[in-house]
Every structure is written in C-alpha cells, then in structure tokens.
C-alpha cells in the first residue's frame, strides 16, 4: 500500500496542503479530484517521493519513502507528471530504453528488453512506428501517451502487484478516441495488480475508473469514498462553485458531468 498521512505543506507562505491523507491499495484506482490549485499535484509529488514532507509522512509498504533508494523506488512506482519533458534531441526509443533501465553498455545497439511488451504498449496507445521520432517533435497528446507507456515499462512485466502508477492529469491533451484508449489500458493495468493514483479534472473518467475518489479543495480533504458517493451534485457545487451532475449515455455509463 502507498499511503500519505497528515501531509501539510506550506510554500511561499501559502498553505498548499493541510493535514491531507490518502492511500492507494494494489489493484485499485484512487481518483484525486478537485479544482485548480487544490493541491492535487502536490499530493502526487509527495507520493512520488519528490517532496520530502514538511509534516506527516508517505509510506510504501509501511516504509517511509525516504528510506527507499531512488533506484529501488523506481521499480515500484512510476510517475507521469503534467509538465512536458525537455527533448534535448532524445528520441522516443531513448526514453523507452531509459524507462526499462536498459544498461548503457548495450545502448549502442539497443535491443529492448521486452520488445513484445514495448510494441504492444505503443500499439495500445496509437504510437506504433514513432520510436525514431524526436521527443520534442511529438504533439503534446503523443508525448503524454508516450510517457504513460514509459511509466508502464518502468514498472516491468505483466505482474504489476505492489507497483504504483502516479498520473497527473494523464488525459488532459487527449482526443476522445485516445482518451478511450488510455481508459482501457488503465483498466488492464489495474487488473494486473497495479495501484493507480489518477489526478484529473475529468470527473466522468474519475467516476468510471475510480474505485475510490478523494475530493480536495484548498489543500484540505473534503470527502473520500466510492466515486458515486463523492461526486454528488451537493459536494461538487460546494467544491467547484458550479452546478454539476453526472450525465449518462444510453448504456448507463457516466459520459460527462454538466
């Protein structure tokens, strides 16, 4: 289990997080929902081990993140942050090599460790044939999907039990078709045992995919529970200040909030 307890974080005199707690269990999706500036990214950065907690703590399997060597931690959790990464002439294949931990000794004639999984993941997110492309020539949607592929390769093979995937608005640049592709992939990843933290503004995605949702606002925890209990018109009005209710499609799936 990856859990944050009582995180408080003050930056530049502003309280970004105020006694925030959340936990993600294997084979579940935790949706992190809240308005802009609510503190979702800061929670994720704590969970990633990037920020050392000012107060409170983050534990992976009961051990504080600071006690995990960076290299070991990288095999247990992977991150897709919201910023685009600088390309610096690197190619898609370079990023994937680095994610799989391809040793540099073999880099001159890089042969991917698990070529089948690599190409399967690329195909799943409509990136087949992009391996020779430079990172900075990808569209923002492509780069976002590529980084999800890289994160999954970083976590290793098909058995993802005890591995965690931290996603900061992973669908913000996606068109409806690719959004669907990501959703399908994330369901499969959950089936394989990974715990997923999904920070998103797409309430419908959070409702469809989340086993649990956390609503935060102003760095503080508003509510936590099953998505249908959390993403209610009352709580959403309170949090976002606009009336929002789930809209269902013909099949009864939540298609949007409006």
């Amino acid at each position, binding site marked *: 289990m990856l859990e944050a307890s009582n995180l408080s974080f003050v930056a530049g005199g502003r309280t970004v997080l105020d006694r925030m707690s959340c936990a993600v269990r294997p084979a579940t999706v935790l949706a992190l929902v809240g308005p802009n500036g609510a503190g979702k990214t800061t929670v994720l950065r704590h969970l*990633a*081990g*990037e920020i050392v907690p000012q107060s409170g703590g983050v534990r992976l399997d009961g051990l504080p993140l600071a006690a995990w*060597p*960076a*290299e*070991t*931690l*990288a*095999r247990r959790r*992977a*991150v897709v*942050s919201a*910023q685009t*990464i*600088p390309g*610096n*002439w*690197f190619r898609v294949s*370079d*990023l994937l090599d*680095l*994610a799989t*931990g*391809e*040793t*540099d*000794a073999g*880099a*001159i004639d890089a042969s991917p460790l698990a070529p089948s999984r690599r190409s399967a993941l690329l195909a799943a997110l409509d990136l087949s044939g992009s391996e*020779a492309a430079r*990172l900075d020539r990808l569209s923002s949607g492509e780069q976002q999907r590529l980084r999800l592929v890289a994160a999954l390769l*970083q976590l290793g093979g098909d058995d993802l039990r005890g591995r965690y995937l931290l996603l900061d608005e992973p669908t913000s640049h996606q068109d409806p078709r690719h959004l669907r592709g990501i959703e399908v992939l994330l369901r499969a990843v959950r089936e394989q045992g990974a715990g997923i933290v999904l920070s998103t503004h797409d309430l419908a995605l959070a409702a469809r995919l989340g086993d649990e949702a956390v609503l935060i606002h102003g760095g503080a925890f508003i509510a936590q529970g099953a998505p249908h209990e959390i993403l209610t018109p009352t709580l959403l009005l309170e949090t976002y200040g606009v009336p929002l209710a789930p809209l269902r499609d013909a099949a009864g799936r939540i298609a949007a909030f409006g």
Partner: protein
Amino acid sequence: MPVSSEIPSRGLAVVLVAALVASALLALNSGATPASLWGLYASPEQDARALARDRAILLELRLPRVVASLLVGAATAVSGAVLQGLFRNALADPALLGIMSGAALGAGVVLLGAGQWGGLEVRLLGQIGAIAGAAAAFFLVWSLACRFAADRTQGLLLAGIAVNAAASAGTGLLTFLYSDSQLRTFVFWTLGGMGGVERAALPFLLAPTGIALWIALRQARALDCLALGEQTAFHLGVDLARTRRLLVGGSLLAVGASVAIVGPISFVGLVVPHVLRLTGAVRHARLLPLCALFGALAVLWADLLARILVRPQELPLGLVTAAFGAPTFAYLLWRRGKQA
C-alpha cells in the same frame, strides 16, 4: 537537426581512433628539430651522439607532451560533457563554471610557496592545490546558484562569472607577490602549454583522467535521464545527490590535475561535446567516449600547431585552443539560433 545529418557513432569512433594514431605519429615526428622516429632506425651511419640526442628529444620531450595532450584533451572534453549534462546547461564547462580559474589560483598559491615548478613533489603539491582551488570555486558557484531556486541552471553561469572574476583577481594579486622568474613561469603556465611536461608527470595525468572517465561512463544512464529534467530523472530512479557528488568529484579531480600540469585550456570542454552532439551522439554512453577521443585529438593538434606554427618558438596552447574554439563556438551558436 535533421535525421540525415546523423553519423553512426561506431564509424565515427573508428575514424577518430585512426586520426588519433596518425596524428600522434605526426606529432612525434614534428618539432623544432628534424628528429624523427624513422631517423632513429633508418640511418645507421649517423653518429652516436646525434642519435642519442634525437632519441632524447623523441622520448623525453615529444612523447610526454603527446601523451599529455591526449590525456588533457580527453579529461577536459569529458568533463565539459559531464558538467553540461549534469547541470542541463549547454554553457556549463570547466572554464565558465569557475573550476579552471579556481584551479589556477590554487596552483598559483602553491607556486608562490614552492618557489619554482621543480621536481615531482612540487608538481604533486601543485595538483593538490589546483584540485582544492577547483573544488572551492565550484562549491562557491554551487552555493550561490542554489539561491536561484527557480532557475539554478542560469544561476550557475551567473555565479560562475562572479567566481571567475574573484579568482582572476586572486591570481592578479599573486603576480605582485611573485619574484621575476616566478612571474615568468606563472604567466606561461596560465596561458597553457605542454612544454614543461616530463615523463614522470604522466601518471598524475593518467590516473585522474582514468578515474573521471570511469565515473562518467558508469553514470551515463543517469546523465541520459538528467537530459529529460531533474524531476524525470528522479522518477526514473536517479539518486540526484549521489550522481552529482560522483560526477562533480570526478570532473574536479581531472580538471584540477590537468590544470596544475599544463595550465588552463579553454574551449575544448565547451566545444567538443557540442560538435559531437550534432552528429547525433546524444546518449552519454556514446557521447562520452567520443568526447574523450575527439578532445584528445583536438588538444593534440592544438599542441602540434603551437609547436610548429612559429618554429622554433612556441605559441601558448591556450591561445591556439581559443583561436579555433571561439569561432567554432560562435558558429554553433549561430547555427542553433537559426534553428530556433
């Protein structure tokens, strides 16, 4: 950079090695006197004294400087590539970050205490002084840069300017304290040159260069990850603090050791990695060995030109590297500006 301009790294390495061998032979056989390797064997009727003289010129004068050029070039270029990668700054190089001037000041202080560059002990002391000076300068630059929380990369260069100026002021002050002969020694040394390199000094260049290159190659994946940003590098499992310690340590060692023996060499650390990146070698497992080869070749030629252009006089090495490095760098800037 269009894909078509890429040059296969392996082919490039082969060409560089061949060029190195050929150039080293040429350098051994060129100089103020016509002594040559073939001369030692080809003309048995030569009198013994001339033969011994030629032999001494080749083995005691030219060979050490050829080997020293190769090592200094490799160390400087690899350090440049490492610092650029580590700080994700295209302008990071041992000279601009204040490391070279710090090393020069450190060695200069030792010269003041020692009287003259003399035997091996003085050289060693000079190296220790230079490495200490390089380390002091770098940690000053680093602490200043860390104040620029938002943009440490830019902070490094600004702090480098400040520390460079301070170190230059320090070396300027030294010149007032030196005796006339010390002053001459110091001035020639600060301009850079392989002239005074003895064979006994070579291990003291070889060991630090070897260590720095070894560390750099072991950290090649970390440097690759850093090219994608510090945050991404951490996500990919890079221990940022440890990587920084190792790579900075290796670079300080190699640069300090080389500055103490041959003086500061400008532009090699800056330009060589940039030129090689243009060939498509951006992954450090390829870039670093190519830098070692190309850096060695560049300094070897710079020293060769320094020796033969104004024969029997000799140009300062730093002058030659700057004369070629500055326009190359300007061209790279111009080229990149055009692309942006």
